[in-house]
């Protein structure tokens, strides 16, 4: 459908959001990503029954961890949509980008650069 969404979003493919680990989300923030979000099937429509529900729990867990650390929970989010919803995907991409812009850059970024 070629719907425009911000260029700063890069997609990492997983078979199911159930494969998105707490460590994967943390690592992205640790390495300086301004935000990271998981995009899964609609709740109740997981191809693997419940992977997206587990992903949501993990995202919620990571949000708590970020707050403990002193970072904004909203740098990590979970979105749900069906594969036929291109416009929704683009809308979420924009929403997440706007959200991150409001939060500002990840303060850990400078440490990632010196790595």
């Amino acid at each position, binding site marked *: 459908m070629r719907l425009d*969404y911000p260029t700063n979003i890069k997609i990492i493919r*997983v*078979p199911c959001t159930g494969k998105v680990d707490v460590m994967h989300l943390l690592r992205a923030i640790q*390495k300086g990503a301004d935000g990271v979000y998981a995009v899964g099937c609609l709740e109740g429509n997981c191809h693997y029954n419940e992977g997206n529900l587990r992903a949501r729990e993990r995202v919620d867990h990571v949000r708590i961890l970020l707050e403990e650390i002193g970072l904004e929970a909203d740098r990590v989010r979970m979105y749900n949509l069906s594969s036929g919803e*291109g416009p929704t995907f683009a809308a979420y991409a924009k929403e997440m980008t706007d959200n991150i812009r409001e939060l500002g850059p990840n303060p850990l970024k400078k440490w990632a650069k010196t790595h």
Partner: protein
Amino acid sequence: MNINLITNSEVTDVEGDPGNFSVKMVNYPRYIDPVKCTGCGECAIHCPVTAVNQYNKGLDDRRATYIEYAQAVPLAFAIDTETCVGCGLCENMCIAKAITYDDKERETTVKVGSVILSAGSQGYDPSNLDILGYGNYAYVVTSEEFERILSASGPYFGHLMRPLDREEPKSIAWLQCVGSRDTNQCGNGYCSSVCCTYAVKEAMVAKEHAHGGDLDCAIFNMDMRTFGKDYEKYYLRAKDKDGVRFIKARVHTVTEVPESGDIVVHYVDEAGDIKEEIFGMAVLSVGLQITDSSADLAKRLGIELNQYNFVKSNPFSPVVTSRPGIYTCGVLQSPKDIPGAVTEASAAACLAGTELAEARGTDIPTVDIPEEIDVSKEEPRIGVFVCNCGINIGGIVDVTSVQEYAAKLPYVVYADQNLFTCSQDTQDIIKERIIEHKLNRLVVASCSPKTHEQMFMETLEACGINKYLFEMANIRNQDSWIHSKDPDAATEKAKDLVRMSVARAAYLRPLKEKIVPINKQALVIGGGIAGMNAALSLDKQGFDVVLVEKEAQLGGFARKLHHTIEGEDVQANLEKIIEQVEASARISVLTAANIVGFEGFKGNFSTNIEVGPEKELQTVKHGVIIVATGAKEYAPTEFLYQEQDNVITQVELSDRLAEKGAADFNNVVMIQCVGSRNDDNVECSRICCQSAVKNALHIKKLNPDTQVFVLYRDIRTYGLLEDYYTEARKQGVVFIRFNRETPPTVSSASDGALLVTVKDHILQRDIEITSDLVVLSAGVEAEDTEALCGVMKLNRNPEGFFIEAHVKLRPVDMPGDGIFLCGTAHGPKLISETIAQAQAAASRATTFLAKSEIKLSAITAKVDVDTCVKCLTCVRCCPFEVPSFNEEEKVIEINEAICHGCGVCACVCPRQTIQLSYYEDDQIMSKIDSLLVEGM
């Protein structure tokens, strides 16, 4: 692989006999060669001509050079010569040289053994029903148009708006039965079966899409016919939770408020009062209509149709047409929903395949794959191929700079760019480069792995490299297409994506797809109509079957039935089926048999069965399972059933009518929804309305003087059954509607008669009927399969019916591979539907049994048993109950044959000892790290 798709063509004639047909057709010109077309869409972008987009029901426009929708197969454009001005721009823009202005209409012939006619239907065109205002008022739309309005890929991108002023309506009315159940205006006496449920769906989705959450949705209906599996629950959710209003009325007139364009709906309510209500929009729930061209086609092929142009069929052979060797399925057979159509499609494939069973597999090309080279010990040597995709990528992204960038990345020993990396000649180039540069990893930066991964993997295999040493960077769909306004950023992003893919490629490991042999025998559980038909179908396909029946004799619930509503003799047909089963050399029948043990996986099951009164233990090895355990009639506790002899069920009434007739009945009262649509069983039992109509007609035939009253909530004589409901009313059967909240009561009157009291909604008062007989339309209850499920670990819904893998797309597959489902074990259904489903299950089973071996997916989870602490977290978290503790080896094991590869276990393992192949932690982490290494 073995499907030859011929689009844009029409069959003109079919000559010959079963097993040897010659199909003549006209291939209409497409003006774009689908083989060369890559679906890039440049032609459409540059086409200057606007045409009405019929796919979106005329609500928006498209170009003259077009593709109907993004998921179309084949993904190839076409030129609409009705509107094309012949400017030649598309030809100039097409790098693939696919435009063929001189394309001509051709006539071709194909030789086939069987034919399936599945020409489908269209939505009824309500233009002629002037009372509904369609075509006159802008905000009266058909349900098909409304579907497109709600669709994210539709004309308004999923925003709920009215077509003209593009404002969101505050209220919407759905008008049911437009073009259905209407012999008066349009001649379609049948019920279209799907409109009630789709109207509920549209209302629910509209509410979701509306802003503010106060969208008023009202569905005007005569009967709500949500009779499919779980549909009643959906209807109740809409009614009770989401506040959709259901109004019992057939709208007689629609007018418009001139200034606002709002729609005035005029109707007569249940009490007979004249009402009108204003809505922002009205949706006409149009029925299913066989098109004239489909009817003409059927007639050309010599296939008999009924008065509504549906294919004539017999309940015991639902997908067989009047012409041998030609089968049918879907709405052309009769109105039905998607699960029914998909089921019938498999059934038709089963029968079509029967005739071809001998020739199975002879026409499939085979590919030789060289022996795999072991590269696991080698340093990664990565080759990167960057695709221009014509100008799809190259027009935005600076491909040369991406190629140069890729060449400098770690482990990359070769980088190249291609005009079309997916073209056949590029595959040959890739193969040469792999050999020349000793590449052991391949990265292609082009489009989506969903469409092209398989092809590149095959290229790797052809070079002796494990196909899992492949990685794809999607720099088209995820980059050039969406960032066309910012080529510099798109180029940078392409580099990021390539860098990530190269990083991951270095961590890829060769994976083995385990090959398991398939046992060619099938186990069918249940010897009723479903199980026997499935067994017979498999027999005809050439496979051995073990048919297990828990009772001492075959036949199941059908033994209690006399005739179908169409008048077919059930017992005679049943006897015929049993004879065929018993005569079959391939079917071994085990009666009085119970399944007591079970193990194995797809292709390799082993089941222990206790047979006969002596409980002799037999072990059966089989490759597939068909579950057909059936259902029974609910034993009522209501309406004095257990106290009075003259309160009986519909099944008992059939017996009574067969034995003693109806001469002694003055009044008979039937009560619907006994044991269905109540608190104990929320679901509709689907078949009871037709049972009541069938028996009412039978009584009227035996004794026209008998008064028959049917007390109902909604009459659900769906599809062609509606004609029988109409006939019953013609013959004087009295139908009285009651509400769930005010059910009828039955008490005993003097001299053994019964007094039935029911509130008549028109009179708004109770009426009393003295009746000789009260007949309860008792619902359908699943057989008790508790013990079987304990042994075989099969999933059932709360009502005790088995759950299919996917309601619409895999209606006869069970969630476990190699296990199929049919008949009333799946949910209440008619004999004709049961037989179609049994044939469908056999067809699905055949797709398994026809192979001698299967390749298992290599993308499965693996446990490192050395560090595993056996905490059982994976065992408890797996959605498919795959990990288990092996009592003998004392380790946690994950059977790769049944692992679905979702990766949940890998993420919950506290010791990080489980890895999902192809998505191992280092493979994912390397992508994250390489993305961020440059401080994004």
